[in-house]
């Protein structure tokens, strides 16, 4: 009886589940979610087929059109009205390099395949005969140059193809096959693919043999496979229920989602398929997720405020990487197209310190464009400054040091001792290289060369108390995030329930400093409920000494972030001194 009831229950649940999925699929136009595993992608070309007997050769060149940002980068008034918005916008033709080529017969059977070369040229053979074949250049590469697919959506996993038919009665040159930047916008898919190749070429050029000069540096050959999902007129932010234009990378899934417009519109909406800054920025996130490692909490950022240093590092790296690959100190994101209205959605110079400027020492570790500028200063040849009393006249061409710091498994980002990674960790790793002195460019950006401002590793010991002097909240600058918080990296050596105690004293007045204690898991997204594993935030009754205590079950060898937070909702107070103890022993800075 019970078995029957359970069976019926399961059947019912299954039916309900199926109906739910189907109705959801209909309601979302066939979209499920960005992590969805749809049908397997069609197998990549297994290699060319050798035909015996009479064959003919089909050859040609594959190219795509790129709609370039209008207005000269770094000059003019591009996108803001005036002469530079005249249509048509500048465009350029580029070869489709190292991409898959497939030839199919009228029934759709694969009869031959190969790849374009570095000029976009292809040459393949098929049996001679009065058969009309279709040659398609595919938006995929899987070779020593690049491993990437540009597909339509996770729910379908279809590639894009630039196709032309031919009859195999004699050898034929198809001439130039052009993927355009208008109409079906096929050029967009190949532009995305081409930018991935640009990134791989840059890395091979800069750090293909970096271990020869920097021990432990990971020599780059080709990046693991990435999939970019793009569809003309589709906004990936739809997955999150928003109509605001968005391109993003999905950590852990090796998937990029590139903005193709909004509800079918590409002429007046934000698109990113020709915004190489955005494409390369998101690819940089793929690299950090797959080749070194990232602890970024993700989320929004506007490039002009104090943010979580892990986010500042990750986004600053992305901004820098696109500039390095494109060899220009610009970040350019455009809106619209020839047939509509055009603007520059975000266009900023990465060389000049005219935005996201640190106002106190150490604040550069919390600002993404400060991170970007520092990395750019490490590779460019400009003698910038003086800024904040320092001039960059010594550091240039050091991408290899950045890469070494990121890829070394000891004293590098891949070092298992590192956690909650931010620019402070990069500085630690760069200093450990015993290579170039970056102190001038760090001073220019008011960055500390270590993790003292965020994720300082602590263990039990003896040390002086620390202090906090809270400031008012300001959502525009968000500087209170740094000033009103302290963040410590704690890794217990044994699994147990720990009592973590914050003791603080404020006798300064006239107000009362109110310090609270939060313990986060490794995700440690600030004030996100899922990541807070324990907290204590009682209200102090007045000046004097107060405690906050948290009892949490911690696992040996796991990273936790302890956050001392000054609550200023009831007033600022003066200065509080404080210490943290675990099971009665004080926590102090140490090296893991």
């Amino acid at each position, binding site marked *: 009886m019970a078995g029957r009831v359970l069976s019926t229950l399961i059947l019912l649940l299954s039916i309900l589940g199926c109906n739910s999925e189907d109705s959801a699929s209909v309601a979302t136009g066939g*979209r499920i979610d*960005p992590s969805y595993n749809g049908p397997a992608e069609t197998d990549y070309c297994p290699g060319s087929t050798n035909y015996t007997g009479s064959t003919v050769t089909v050859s040609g060149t594959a190219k795509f059109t790129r709609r370039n940002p209008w207005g000269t980068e770094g000059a003019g008034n591009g*996108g803001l009205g005036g002469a530079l918005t005249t249509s048509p916008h500048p465009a350029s033709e580029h070869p489709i390099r190292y991409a898959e080529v497939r030839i199919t017969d009228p029934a759709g059977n694969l009869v031959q395949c190969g790849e374009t070369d570095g000029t976009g040229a292809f040459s393949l053979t098929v049996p001679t005969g009065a058969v009309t074949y279709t040659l398609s250049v595919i938006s995929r590469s899987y070779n020593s140059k690049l491993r990437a697919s540009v597909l339509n959506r996770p729910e379908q996993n279809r590639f894009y193809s630039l196709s032309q038919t031919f009859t195999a009665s004699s050898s034929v040159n198809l001439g130039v096959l052009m993927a355009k930047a208008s109409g079906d916008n096929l050029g967009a898919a190949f532009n995305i693919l081409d930018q991935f190749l640009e990134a791989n070429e840059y890395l091979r050029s800069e750090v293909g043999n970096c271990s020869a000069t920097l021990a432990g540096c990971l020599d780059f050959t080709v990046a693991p496979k990435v999939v970019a999902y793009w569809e003309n007129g589709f906004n990936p932010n739809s997955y999150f229920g928003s*109509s605001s234009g968005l391109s993003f990378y999905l950590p852990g899934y090796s998937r990029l989602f590139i903005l193709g417009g909004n509800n079918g519109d590409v002429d007046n909406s934000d698109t990113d398929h020709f915004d190489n800054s955005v494409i390369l920025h998101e690819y940089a996130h793929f690299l950090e997720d797959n080749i070194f490692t990232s602890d970024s909490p993700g989320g929004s950022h*506007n490039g002009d405020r104090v943010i979580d240093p892990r986010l500042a590092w990750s986004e600053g790296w992305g901004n820098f990487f696109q500039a390095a690959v494109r060899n220009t100190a610009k970040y350019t994101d455009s809106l619209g197209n020839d047939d509509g209205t055009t603007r520059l959605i975000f266009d900023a110079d990465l060389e000049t310190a005219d935005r996201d400027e640190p106002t106190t020492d150490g604040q550069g570790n919390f600002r993404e464009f400060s991170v970007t500028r520092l990395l750019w200063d490490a590779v460019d040849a400009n003698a910038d400054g003086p800024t904040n009393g320092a001039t960059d006249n010594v550091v240039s061409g050091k991408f290899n040091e950045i890469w070494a710091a990121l890829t070394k498994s000891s004293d590098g980002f891949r070092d298992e001792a590192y956690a909650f990674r931010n620019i402070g960790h990069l500085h630690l790793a760069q200093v450990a290289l015993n290579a170039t002195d970056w102190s001038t460019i760090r001073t220019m950006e008011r960055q500390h060369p270590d993790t003292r401002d965020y994720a300082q590793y602590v263990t039990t010991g003896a040390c002086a108390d620390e202090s906090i002097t809270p400031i008012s909240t300001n959502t525009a600058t968000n500087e209170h995030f740094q000033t009103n918080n302290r963040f410590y990296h704690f890794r217990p050596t044994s699994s147990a329930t720990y009592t973590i105690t914050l003791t603080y004293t404020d006798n300064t007045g006239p107000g009362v400093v109110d310090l609270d204690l939060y313990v986060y898991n490794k995700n440690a997204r600030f004030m996100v409920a899922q990541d807070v594993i324990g907290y204590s935030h009682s209200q102090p009754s007045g000046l004097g000494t107060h405690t906050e205590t948290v009892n949490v079950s911690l696992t040996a060898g796991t990273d936790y972030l302890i956050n001392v937070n000054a609550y200023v909702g009831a007033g600022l107070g003066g200065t509080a001194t404080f210490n943290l103890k675990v099971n009665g022993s004080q926590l102090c800075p140490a090296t893991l």
Partner: protein
Amino acid sequence: MSGHSLSAIFLFIAVAAIAMATHIADLRKQERRPASVKKEQLTTAPPFKHTEKLRGPLNAMIELIGAHPIAAGDVFVLRGLIHSTKDLQDVEFKWSIPAGLEVVNGTVAGTISILKSNQPTEVQITLRALGPENRQVHLITNAADRGARFADSAQYNTVLQAKIDQRLKAMRASTERAGFRAKSLRKSGAKPGPQPADSNRHGLKIYE
């Protein structure tokens, strides 16, 4: 297959389903925890951790005032809201009006001399639909600040907007369900299905 085997399979699935349901209930409880935060309000994370592209300070939105157009000749009013997270000067705006609509009242393009931080400015336009087809109206705004340039675009669909809003809501719900499943898988130590890309050298990571 014998009856015993079938029963055993059903029983296993049932137990698994009940365990899953209990697990989900527990997770939902955990998601609400801690419920009694009195100071810094804890927030809920999005369903999947993901990076986002840079956004400037400008933001444009369009709202419909009154009824939406149904038939040719219907007049309707759109209100644009232009918002900035910082003080900006000389903020330009432009309504992009497609063929099939005509302007009855309002300014198609203009400049807001000073846009104060977190103080949205309204720009309103009255349009007449010349036919029953869906038309996409855009409000585009742009500004410059310290050598940088920013813009944003908002879209309104004369006929389909309600359906689009419903679809967005459904997609978010679908993504949230997937994020919840991913979280459950992570907690249970299981892995989701095969990934289309190469094996991640660090192993699969599921983010909440």
